[in-house]
């Protein structure tokens, strides 16, 4: 019987097979195995712990509820990172759309009403970072990463934090291989410039 197996030593493919047979312990092991990498990727994308938790939860639910559709020729971790990246990018796009209202309500009829209904996006984002997040994201390299475009951020994270090959990143993010190489190249240069700038300060 499956529950007698030590699931921690099983490769992803075997774990997925057990999950496809309806073994709850296999589902739990998959979550446990990937919660940190998935959460970290999303957290570094959205810079908000609470939002990152919600998006990580959404990622796992999407993947695990469609585990029967998993194709073994695709790495499970790539599938997870693909969904994680998509939900993070969707969130960032929505947040960007929300900023349309930074100039205040279109129904405002006076300057005071405009002021009352508008808000400063940067201030909102910074204030959302509590002390712990500020500490976690406080290192120079973390701050430099936050300055990157989201697509550069996803590529550089997958390459250097998760140790993925260029081909895997291309498959994960649905990007041409050349584009991935370009993004990583530019990201490295931007990070170098940002870190040099900090050093000069």
């Amino acid at each position, binding site marked *: *019987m499956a529950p007698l197996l030590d699931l921690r030593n099983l490769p992803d493919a075997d774990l997925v097979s057990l999950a496809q047979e309806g073994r709850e312990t296999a589902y*739990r092991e998959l979550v446990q195995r990937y919660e940190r990498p998935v959460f970290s990727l999303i957290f570094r994308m959205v810079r908000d712990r609470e939002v990152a938790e919600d998006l990580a939860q959404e990622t796992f639910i999407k993947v695990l509820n469609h585990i029967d559709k998993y194709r073994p020729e695709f790495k499970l971790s790539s599938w997870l990172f693909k969904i994680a990246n998509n939900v993070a990018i969707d969130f960032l796009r929505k947040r960007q759309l929300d900023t349309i209202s930074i100039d205040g309500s279109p129904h405002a009829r006076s300057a005071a009403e405009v002021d009352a209904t508008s808000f400063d996006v940067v201030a909102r984002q910074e204030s959302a970072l509590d002390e712990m997040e500020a500490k976690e994201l406080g290192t120079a390299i973390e701050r430099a990463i936050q300055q990157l475009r989201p697509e550069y951020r996803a590529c550089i994270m997958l390459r250097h934090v998760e140790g993925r090959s260029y081909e895997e990143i291309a498959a994960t993010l649905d990007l041409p291989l050349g584009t991935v190489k370009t993004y990583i190249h530019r990201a490295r240069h931007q990070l170098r410039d940002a870190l040099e700038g900090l050093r000069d300060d």
Partner: protein
Amino acid sequence: MDHRHLLSEEIDLLLDGEEGFGVNPLKAHLAQCAGCRAEYETQREVTTALESLPHFVPSPWLAERVMSQVQIFEPWHVALRDRIVSALPRTRAGRTLVFGTGGVMAVTMSVLTVWLAHRADAVLFLASLLGQRMRDLVTGGVHDVVVSTVGQGAAATVASNGLLGVGMALSALALAVLGTAFGLNSLATAARSRRG
């Protein structure tokens, strides 16, 4: 020494630890060119810093929150297999007994089937004999019912006329049923109109 400095794409190749035909000259250049080496080292610092970034830890409730919304589906064949496995004895001796009994039964059934196939003529004879007995039983039963309902004479008439007789008898029965129903309905209507 190559007088050209390394292109940033070539430094990328070195940073990515690429090995191959074109990489050795790049390495040789790097060993001799202080400018390119400085550029490479700066880039290397960035990648090292990235590679040493830790994973963040989500709240301990993430797994529970995920599991509360995951629909776990157990395919029927897995459920069946589990049911069979759980129904089997847990001890080795018990399982041996179950599998042994099952094996003996399977062998016996197989031998019986082969024997029956081999003696197909006898089986067919027995089957036809049984069929005849059943037919006689049913016919006799029906005859008894008809005699007790319409009497010996009517039954003999119906039987002597074959299918035509059966058809006429059924038609007469249908007419009698319809007539009775019509009569009862007329009586009921008359009674209602009198009360009204």
